[in-house]
């Protein structure tokens, strides 16, 4: 689905994957936000499942990513406002908002900025703050090839680096590298810089009301589960946190453990605790 948003990006096309299904008014909505240097396709399996099981799926390509045109936005706050505008444009009513890595920071900021919009929040592979190593940040500008190799090295569990893939016949690290190569020059740097600069995470977490899933992977070197403690402490007393740690995967868990990620998201989306609007 291709749409135009109002505002300063009105001249640009926004692409949203809907899991090959039409959006229906009487269905709940899941909004999937991808991470740095990626596009909607990182959610291919999970979003397709939701779309074929009674949910509207909105999985946008962020500005400048994938099929969406325009410049990459430069801060998590701008990206969050863009997501809010997108949700309003598509008439998404109280969606489950799911984000991975940078997408998780965006989702967190969306929940803080527009708490009335979000019914449930699922943060996949997140830490707050999310500093980016200077060497990596520099290489996103000066040597993309090196940046992609570093990201892959930190994003995949040892098993995925050389061992078997969860998706038969697919070389997961190469797939990720090609996806990053596909983005326009400057996009990955803008994304990484936005993650690095985002200082509002704890404040945003303190304003979250309602159910929130923190989904981590034990072998994630990019956003390790043990680094989640400050974020957990920052959540407000009214936030209802669910924590799940996948044992085998790394940061790229949607492709490394696609079924486990789906099961965690699906259980969270449909659990009695989260079936209604937050109080």
């Amino acid at each position: 689905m291709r749409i135009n948003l109002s505002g300063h990006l009105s001249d640009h096309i926004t692409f949203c994957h809907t899991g090959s299904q039409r959006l229906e008014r009487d269905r709940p909505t899941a909004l999937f936000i991808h991470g740095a240097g990626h596009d909607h396709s990182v959610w291919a399996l999970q979003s397709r499942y939701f779309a074929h099981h009674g949910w509207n799926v909105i999985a946008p390509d962020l500005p400048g990513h994938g099929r969406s045109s325009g410049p990459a936005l430069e801060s998590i706050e701008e990206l969050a406002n863009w997501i809010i505008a997108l949700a309003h444009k598509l008439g998404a009513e109280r969606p489950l908002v799911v984000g991975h890595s940078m997408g998780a920071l965006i989702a967190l900021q969306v929940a803080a900025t527009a708490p009335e919009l979000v019914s449930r929040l699922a943060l996949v592979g997140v830490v707050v703050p999310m500093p980016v190593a200077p060497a990596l940040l520099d290489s996103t500008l000066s040597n993309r090839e090196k940046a992609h190799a570093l990201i892959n090295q930190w994003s995949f569990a040892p098993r995925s680096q050389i061992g078997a893939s969860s998706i038969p016949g697919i070389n997961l690290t190469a797939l990720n590298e090609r996806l990053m190569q596909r983005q326009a020059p400057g996009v990955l740097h803008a994304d990484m810089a936005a993650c690095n600069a985002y200082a509002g995470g704890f404040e945003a977490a303190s304003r979250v009301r309602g159910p929130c899933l923190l989904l981590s992977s034990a072998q994630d070197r990019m956003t390790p589960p043990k680094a989640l403690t400050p974020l957990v402490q920052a959540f407000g007393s009214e936030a209802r946190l669910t924590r799940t740690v996948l044992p085998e995967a790394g940061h790229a868990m949607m492709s490394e453990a696609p079924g486990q990620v789906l099961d965690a998201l699906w259980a969270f989306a449909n659990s009695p605790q989260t079936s209604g609007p937050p109080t």
Partner: protein
Amino acid sequence: MSIHRNAGADTLALHAGQTPDPVHRSRATPIHFTTSYVFEDSEHAASLFNQERAGHVYSRISNPTNAVLEERIAALDGGIGAIACASGQAALLLAITTLMGSGGHIVASRALYGGSHNLLAYTLPRFGIETTFIAPGDHQGWRAAIRPETRLLFGEAIGNPGLEVLDIPELALIARDARIPLLVDATLVTPMLQCPLDLGANLVVHSATKFLGGHGVAIGGLLVDGGNFDWEGSGGHFPTLTEPYEGFHGMDFAEESPIAAFLLRARREGLRDFGACLSPMNAFQILQGMETLGLRMERHVANARALVSHLVEHPLVESVAWPELESHPDHQLAARLLPKGCGGVFSFSLKGGRAAGASFIEALRVFSHLANVGDAKSLAIHPASTTHFRMSRNALLAAGITEGTVRLSVGLESTSDLIEDLDRALHAVQKAAT
């Protein structure tokens, strides 16, 4: 831009694609002799069928042993994934049928393996797919042969029978300008000598029957996707990948995965409907061979170099076609694109025509007389008395073969034994002529 490798080629050849199974802890890749896989429940079954979950349903479409092979060759070649097929021919056909239907057109190298030439020249036209053949080094000819309906450029890394070296970087530029993918048959080089995807190709096929397996016991083919072709940016040339497919729940493969669209369609349609899948037994045997691929290719190249050096000076030998020789027209290109060696297959021409070729072949004891290449054992064939025996002298010359041409696939035997065998056969030629 090439793909970063997570380990050296010899390490990948031993480990890529496999994790010791968590139940039995077996180190070797198990052979999953099963046609089908038990679903957890109806819901699990439906989600597997609808590509909402990853996993195996039926071994025609995927199999855990085959998946190890697919992921291993993809890791070695720098591809995003691969599909194992029943043969190299099946892999080539799968690539073509995924990209085009009736009305499609291919520009292909004239220096192809006979089986591939037959498919393109005689069989596919019956289904509305035409091919224009161009000499591998005639780059202007490649450009000129591209038509609005052209959907693929295709050549072999090292051609048959003259060992022409395909200028992959140059053809990749031609393909990119025309927004058409370049497919390279890398059977004779294997990832140990050349990775066409690193040089700009988009797709690779291997006859795994040859050097990858190395033992000559299993037929198999592999189709590798570089994930580096922009299907959506091709001006609507590939509707099989960029438009909803009614045959798979309306899936738009390029939307589902802009990078892996080709492999999705090839597996979900091509393997499903044409059914040229690989037996897991063959996959296991090819994997066993691949574990020693690096060591073997070094030895194949070393032995081939020794035999070429021996033959090129021999008074009964008219010429030797081997790109590492300065006399070969592609010598410079080979030095640039094949710095580790030009493989283990070469041909040479005997003085004395058909009779000399037949005498030579019949006197060999270590070399086996048969129609194959890439075995651990040395192989020889005399085209004028076997594969091309009905052809006249002129027709043979048009195909780049003389009446005295002999093709050798140099194996791993002791070099001195191979040289002794060649000398024995050459002596027989001399004796027959006197």
